[in-house]
């Protein structure tokens, strides 16, 4: 039988792979949505470019918060795993 420490390591690595891939996908889709709408807005009204750009940056910051929290969880599992002491 596989001992529990190795099993935990295997599980952590698989979990990290899943977490990071889903987080990357989510960040990619969320950001692309926001930025493409911002581009449409700029194309429609070039005078508002600065305001739209600022709002877009704020939006990107907000959107990326959750994927980055997921990334932090993944990094913790990888480097400071509380189950493997």
């Amino acid at each position, binding site marked *: 039988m596989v001992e529990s420490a190795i099993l935990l390591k295997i599980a952590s690595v698989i979990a990290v792979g899943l977490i990071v891939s889903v987080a990357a996908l989510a960040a990619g889709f969320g950001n692309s949505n926001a930025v493409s709408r911002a581009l449409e807005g700029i194309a429609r*009204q070039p*005078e*508002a470019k*600065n*305001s739209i750009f*600022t*709002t877009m*940056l*704020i939006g*990107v*910051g*907000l959107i*990326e*918060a959750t994927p*980055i*929290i997921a*990334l*932090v969880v993944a*990094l913790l599992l990888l*480097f*400071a795993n509380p189950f493997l002491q």
Partner: protein
Amino acid sequence: MNKIHALTFTQGEIFGFQFHLDTFLMSWVVIIFLVVISWLATRDLKLQPRGLQSILETVVEFLQNLLRENIGPKGQEAFPFVATLFLFILFSNLVGLVWPGVTKSPTEDLNVTLGLAVLVFMSMIYYGIKVQGLKKYLLGFFKPNFLFFPIHLIDFFVKPITLAFRLYGNIFAGAVFITILDLLFKPVIPVVGLILGVFVGVIQAYLFLMLAMAYIASAMEEGVETEEAHPEPTPALPQRTE
């Protein structure tokens, strides 16, 4: 076993309280840096600024414009708090990139970002009660309908917590990224990791600032939902001539 610099904090004890000594030290480095720069710039105030004084005046003007757009005249007294928040966060984010491996951003430590979020939380309450009055502010939690109270409550607590985790996650992930790059591709870190770190640090500081202002502004309004209460700065569009 590889030690990740961003993950290991040197524990220490002061007066019986547990501290992360390196975070403590780096926070004070940032504070002293800001104080020294401010003192150097205001030593000899001239009506027509030169040099360091004009740089700082540009920054102050920029922050005041942002504050005026987002909170309006009622929030002018929040300016010192908000400006200090921004400057501290900005330089905290950047100090960890000055010497990767030796210096460490204070904002890499969840304790620091949670402390900043608590400050924003308290300022939301303070300015809400100050501008609206205690009764009106509390009634705002029940505003659209009595059943909205749990939603308002959750919203109230979640906002500063997401501020803390967003800032922590971004800066911490950047620091780990630099450390990993250092382990794998020695010559590459100065370019890729540091540029990314500077970019992310500036944007996250600006984002924290805008969100803190938006939350304070929404706390000062009637109990309206946040999305309506903080109007995005509308540019003065020139009339389209066609």
